[in-house]
């Protein structure tokens, strides 16, 4: 079962780390985690995917939903450190332009 570690940086950015496979069973929980953060006013979110070993279209849908709700609240959602499996999905769906993966968590909100 996938785990979602969540922490907040000193700059107030929420960092979510899906550890394991982000598939249909896990996507609903990721969506709840992201909705909960935005609901709490933490609308700048980095999803650190260094330990996300698998991503499917449901997980991708949860990321897009989180991106939209963060932006509607005046913030943004950034993806950092995608694994090869995650990069492959971004590239096959042409979403690397929308989700623009960042190399580090620390610099994800630098631009």
């Amino acid at each position, binding site marked *: *079962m996938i785990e979602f570690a969540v922490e907040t940086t000193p700059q107030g950015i929420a960092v979510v780390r899906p550890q394991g*496979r982000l*598939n*249909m*069973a896990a996507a609903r929980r990721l969506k709840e985690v992201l909705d909960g953060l935005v609901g709490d006013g933490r609308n700048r979110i980095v999803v650190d995917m260094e330990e996300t070993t*698998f991503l*499917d*279209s*449901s997980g*991708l*849908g*949860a990321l*897009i*939903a989180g*991106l*939209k709700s963060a932006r509607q609240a005046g913030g943004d959602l950034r993806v950092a450190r995608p694994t*090869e*499996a995650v990069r*492959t*999905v971004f590239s*096959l*769906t*042409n*979403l690397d*332009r*929308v989700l623009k993966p960042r190399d580090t968590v620390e610099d994800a909100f630098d631009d």
Partner: protein
Amino acid sequence: MTEGNDGRLDLSAPATPEMMGLVHAVLEQLWEAHDDVAATDRVRFEMAVIEILGNIVEHAYEIDSTDTGSRRFDVSVAATETELVASFGDNGLPMSIDLSDVAMPDELAESGRGLALAMAAVDDLSYERENGRNLWRLTCTRKG
């Protein structure tokens, strides 16, 4: 899970989201038996297999939300020197899809990418309805 003489792995299980982990485990076993399959081929094959399973599971819920227990699927996966092949069968209602019409949705769509992603990941994907069952077949030509 059973193993055929030809190294094929078979699994039959209820069509529920919880079974996804079981199918990932079947693929792990396939990679253990065929450790020469390149990582890029593993990634795209696994992605397509899970998308098709997701489609079967979602469809099972969609058509009969009160009686999901009777919806089952079978899957069989195999690796040859040149190909990775998966076949799915399920007893859900017929799918009304034309694979030639499948396309990626808008960038900000939250759903509707599953089949398009599966088709982009593998070299061949087919669907047919036969004897009251949905049959899916996926083929990846090994490139690694």
